[in-house]
């Protein structure tokens, strides 16, 4: 396992409890009541997309669905709104994982931006079809914040998997 496919560093295997812990912490971050402040990223979507790209066999649509239901209750929104959006996000992220991982981090961020925007669009369509008000263009700012956070979050979440880089001239690999 490498950080990205063109990297020469080899990662330690991921621990399952670490994935669960980070998703849980993201959920806690999402519960912080910022009200209608624009530009606050959807942490759950960010971490979910990260794990779907890096561990598509372990984290997928089921995790997205469960986290979505939790967010629906926490946000006082309609049941199924976040669930639908996160399931689609997980599908896209896991499906594109083979492609995304070939790119350096800045271009990976450009790949996940349309996923986040699509997720917000799905939520907006689901709610506006039922007669809710338009939340304003600034609401979409949170996708761009999440995209900017892709680079630091990658390093943060991969830290436990990095091993010290020891240059051993006698080792074949």
């Amino acid at each position, binding site marked *: 396992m490498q950080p990205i496919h063109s990297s020469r560093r080899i990662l330690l295997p991921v621990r399952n409890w670490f994935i669960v812990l980070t998703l849980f912490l993201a959920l806690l971050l999402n*519960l912080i009541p910022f009200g*209608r402040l624009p530009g606050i990223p959807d942490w759950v979507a960010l971490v979910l997309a990260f794990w779907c790209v890096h561990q598509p066999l372990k984290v997928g649509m089921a995790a997205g669905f469960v986290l979505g239901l939790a967010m629906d209750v926490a946000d006082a*929104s309609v049941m*199924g709104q976040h669930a639908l959006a996160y399931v689609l996000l997980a599908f896209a992220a896991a499906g594109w994982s083979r492609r995304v991982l070939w790119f350096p981090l800045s271009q990976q961020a450009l790949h996940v931006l349309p996923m986040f925007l699509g997720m917000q669009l799905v939520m907006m369509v689901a709610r506006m079809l039922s007669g809710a008000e338009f939340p*304003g263009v600034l609401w979409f700012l949170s996708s761009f914040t999440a995209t900017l956070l892709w680079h630091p979050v990658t390093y943060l979440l991969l830290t436990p998997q990095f091993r010290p880089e020891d240059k051993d001239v006698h080792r074949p690999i």
Partner: protein
Amino acid sequence: MSVAGHAPPPFFKRGPAPLVRLAFFVSLSLILLLADLRFHTLEWARLAVATVAWPLQRITWMPIDAAGDAGAYFSRQTTLLRENEELRRRQLGTANLLLRQQHLELENKRLRALLDMRARLPAEGRIAEILYAARDPFSRRVIIDKGSQHGIAAGQAVVDDIGVIGQVARVFPLTAEVLLLTDKDQAIPVEVQRNGLRAVLAGAGAGMMELRFLAANAEIQIGDMLVTSGLDGVYLPGLPVAKVAKIDRDSSYSFARITCEPLAGVERHGLALVLGGRLALPPQPDDAPSIAEQPGRGKRVKKKAP
């Protein structure tokens, strides 16, 4: 099953194909969406999850609380002094009204008793603090710190010191959600204070409200005060609601487009008063047994010892 009778190695087993899983979860989500939007049948699940998640939610308020405390700590003394002065002046200004209010209420009661009318229910209330605005960007809701444990029920009106804020929409054990007047789903029956013209005021989003279904030539002016008419049995009559901000009388439409702005600090945070339900039964006469003495359902009536 392969030809040789061996099961395929386990690392090829990845469950159903991604598209199958996608279809399954998407249809499940859509069913949930429909069930919640059209039939409102998922309140029990929401209640259960919210109750379990309550301690977590309490933890996540800490950063916001801490930020608020820090802000209050560093707020300058002059600000506080000015606010104090302002409050004292307002109190003096309203003292006159308050004193007369008591007098008038007593007088009113006597007159009503004379007229043998049902005494109007006193406006009972419960003070609640608005904790935060719900994160959902598609609706206007706030969370207050009183719930079903404190006797809050869905449908109660919520006011602040200036006017109506909204209505309790959803009740959890320790908190409740208040749907603000500016939400698109919220409507409130009002009348124009100046001439008693009755209408329905509905949220228009973006912090504004709209007077609906008033004829293009209705007698209404910019600056008119709108108060609750009390026709719905939820809000007490006479509570200030909004002020007319803009009137657009286009003769090509049969109705005027009337935009109003709320009076109360609907989008601000602070203290609010949850009014008791208005449709409570009138107080029982003294000779009837009180509720506490009545046997509960399913219990045997004990005969009193002679």
